């Protein structure tokens, strides 16, 4: 990766320790990714050679790929401008309620995706919440359009975050102020200065959103499947989870392989094109200055953003709550029809155990990944390590459905249906998420410090603990936080891998939704969403405390 790293001395000067760690990483990549993928290729080419032709020409096959591509492209086209608009607008100190908006904009990605899909259905579907209130509904919510819009709402915060980090690294507020002082209108400044500087970040955001939308499962499953809209991921689920036909199994494996090829075909060129642009560092130091803008424009922007968030998450979550407290399907959500029966019905020992499994899986996966992510980031200081780092970064491209199918074929015989196989899937899928923040933080560390400590006689471990671990703590924790929250409500892989008595809470919610238990699903969704939001708030507070105590400024 960057040239700056090559001047840094390795943390682990004993070759043995470094090689041992490298071996751990290589074995992990082999076990988590390479073996499953190889097993899939083998299934398609050797075990089912005769059937692949029929699978490839089956009508559902091509249409699922087409739908996935259309959805991913449309989601990218919608989510990136929305996310970028939020990022640019929220730079200005002239925007009222800016702090609240910066938290609220993240809600659509914090709320579990299947809850978001179900909430939109409850809010805008036929006989939904809004229909009950004002007699308006959007039947299209259960169609290709609905899948696209809700996925875009879900992905917009990701585009927002990537644009924000692009802004903090590259946008030059001095230049913008200078242009404004010289008489340029705000629109001209945005067009001629801010946007060109942001272009690489936007392109990166587009790539990431495209890949996420391509691998998305829960929202297309909830909003599309009932009306015959099938993406590659929902087709894989239907083939594996609802069909006992051997041809369906081959179809699922083939589709899972095609999915990873599409993702790689998009990310490969994008990465090669974008990486040099993203590496350029900012010329002016200092903290990120506020972008110029007027008071009226600020108010207008804030109003628009709140309106968007109200429609995108506010009304849907309200509808979810209304559904959860309403006693029956088909009656109005008015106080005389309110009940807590749905909540008491879902507070069972079995659901409690499912929650426990979700928590344990998320905790263990996030903690193992914090270590693995840290190890890879440390190793990246030499060539072999950098190769390992690139390999880990590439796992981001692997859609969850593909990983799950691969693990099932590779290890299903021994650990199929156990929590272990779900845990392995989490490790494989989330590794890149854990690695990225640590790698980035390590990039920003002055290499002289570790060198100095080693020269003055500190052992590797002491150097690691005293010089590296402290400043890296916020990044490690942030990676841990992202993995934990993602693992807590992961459903794409869990729904394919769980076994008897091993449901995670997310699987329980998805199954309940598929059985048509509207009130119970809503109650479970409300509880799960509250849990995620409360944990996110607590952990976020924890991360900023650590950040402050080690002297890293809050990235705002």
């Amino acid at each position: 990766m960057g040239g700056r790293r090559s001047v840094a001395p390795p943390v682990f000067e004993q070759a043995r320790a470094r090689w041992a760690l490298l071996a751990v990483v290589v074995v992990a990549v082999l076990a988590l990714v390479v073996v499953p993928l190889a097993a899939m290729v083998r299934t398609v080419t050797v075990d089912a050679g005769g059937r692949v032709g029929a699978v490839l020409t089956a009508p559902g096959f091509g249409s699922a790929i087409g739908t996935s591509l259309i959805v991913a492209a449309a989601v990218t086209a919608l989510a990136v401008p929305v996310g970028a608009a939020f990022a640019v607008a929220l730079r200005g100190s002239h925007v009222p309620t800016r702090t609240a908006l910066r938290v609220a904009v993240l809600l659509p990605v914090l709320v579990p995706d299947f809850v978001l899909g179900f909430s939109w259905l409850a809010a805008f579907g036929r006989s939904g919440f809004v229909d009950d209130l004002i007699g308006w509904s959007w039947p299209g919510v259960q169609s290709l359009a609905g899948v696209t819009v809700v996925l875009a709402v879900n992905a917009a915060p990701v585009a927002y975050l990537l644009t924000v980090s692009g802004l903090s690294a590259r946008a030059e507020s001095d230049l913008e102020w200078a242009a404004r002082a010289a008489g340029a209108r705000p629109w001209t400044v945005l067009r001629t200065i801010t946007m060109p500087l942001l272009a690489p970040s936007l392109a990166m955001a587009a790539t990431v959103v495209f890949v996420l939308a391509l691998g998305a499962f829960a929202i297309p499953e909830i909003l599309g499947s009932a009306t015959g809209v099938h993406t590659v991921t929902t087709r894989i689920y239907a083939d594996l989870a609802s069909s006992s036909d051997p041809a369906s199994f081959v179809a699922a494996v083939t589709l899972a392989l095609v999915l990873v090829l599409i993702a790689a075909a998009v990310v490969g060129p994008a990465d090669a094109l974008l990486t040099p642009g993203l590496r350029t560092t900012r010329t002016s130091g200092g903290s990120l200055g506020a972008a110029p803008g007027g008071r009226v424009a600020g108010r207008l922007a804030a109003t628009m953003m709140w309106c968007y968030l109200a429609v995108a998450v506010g009304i849907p979550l309200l509808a979810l709550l209304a559904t959860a407290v309403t006693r029956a399907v088909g009656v109005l959500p008015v106080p005389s029809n309110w009940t807590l029966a749905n909540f008491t019905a879902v507070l069972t020992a079995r659901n409690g155990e499912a929650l426990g499994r979700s928590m344990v899986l998320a905790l263990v996966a996030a903690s193992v990944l914090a270590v693995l992510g840290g190890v890879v980031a440390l190793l990246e200081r030499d060539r072999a390590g950098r190769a390992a780092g690139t390999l880990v970064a590439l796992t981001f491209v692997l859609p969850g459905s593909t990983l799950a199918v691969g693990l099932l074929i590779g290890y299903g015989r021994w650990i199929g249906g156990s929590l272990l196989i779900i845990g392995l899937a989490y490790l494989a899928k989330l590794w890149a998420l854990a690695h990225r923040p640590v790698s980035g933080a390590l990039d920003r560390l002055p290499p002289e410090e570790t060198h100095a400590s080693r020269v003055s006689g500190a052992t590797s471990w002491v150097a690691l603990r005293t010089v590296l671990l402290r400043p890296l703590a916020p990044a490690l924790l942030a990676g841990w936080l992202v993995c934990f929250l993602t693992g807590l409500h992961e459903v794409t892989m869990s729904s394919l891998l769980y076994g008897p008595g091993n449901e995670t809470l997310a699987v329980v919610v998805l199954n309940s939704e598929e059985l048509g238990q509207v009130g119970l699903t809503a109650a479970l969704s409300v509880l799960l969403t509250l849990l995620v939001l409360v944990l996110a708030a607590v952990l976020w507070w924890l991360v900023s405390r650590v950040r402050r105590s080690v002297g890293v400024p809050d990235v705002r």
Partner: protein
Amino acid sequence: MGTTRKVWVSILAVLLLAVAGCGSGTGGPGTAGGSGSAKSFTLYTCVSDTTINPVIKAFEKAHPGMQVKLYRAPTGDLNARIAGDIRSGGLRADAIWACDPLTMQDYVGQGLIGDWTPATDIPEEYRTDHYVGVALLYMVAVTHEGVAPPASWKDLTDARYDGSVAVPDPNIAASALGALGYFAADPSYGLDFYATLKKNGGTQLSTPTDVVNGVAQGTYKAGITIANSAYAAKQSGSPIAVTWPDPGSVAIYGPIALAKHSADNKAAKSFCSYVTSKQGQTVIADSGSYPTLAGVPGPTEPADAKIVSPDWMKLSHSKDKVLRQYQSIFGGR
């Protein structure tokens, strides 16, 4: 400085707790397997949550120390899970409680279950050498409040219900498969019944509960669904009416069977015996499902309810053909 250390210590504590929790029983390859110890067994079923949960609870209470590991899904998903098991080392269930005899007969044909049934007083019409019917599903018609209910099943093809009839998917729901089997075999209905429903704008939803919801919301005027789901919704206040149309409600019995490889699993056998006993049948009835044992009072059933059933054995030979024909009308998942 001090706070950082505290924060780290608390994080470490949480992690240790998590790892300890993980070690104490939830994960590991050992828990995935089928036969397991005699004290616990794995049950695959499509029976609704509202029934299976109280039954397991009552069983575990009556048999201290015994534990049921449950996999519950609609029949279509259950078949897929079993196919996946067979691909990766063999059936992981010790007992299967299906929702219709056709699906169970398939498992017998695959050599997965059978050869043992518990001693029971359940009538012979619900028993074979390989499985015993322990609960009944009744297919009924459900209409939105204010919509005239159908007197016969054929009425659902009337112009008054045009474009507004919902049916459950027989690829997913065993009850729908049973109903399809009955109508297909009845010469005055046949698959034409479904073709006309479709031609009039009928809609296929996935589960019987989806049908009840759609009718309750007013999205559909009428639908075909199962009695326990319809009565449960009506009881909680959904604006629907339940009717048992002529020539009768289609009765589908859900059988339980022991997996062949679990012939010596005590817990699985105890469970099969329990659900076929008067005690177990009473729990089933109290949970809102219809028991098969005579003398155990079941949930709502009209006094003059007419009930029909297909010839299951005959149907088991034509099932795949009928399903294919149906799929050419309504499509499949």
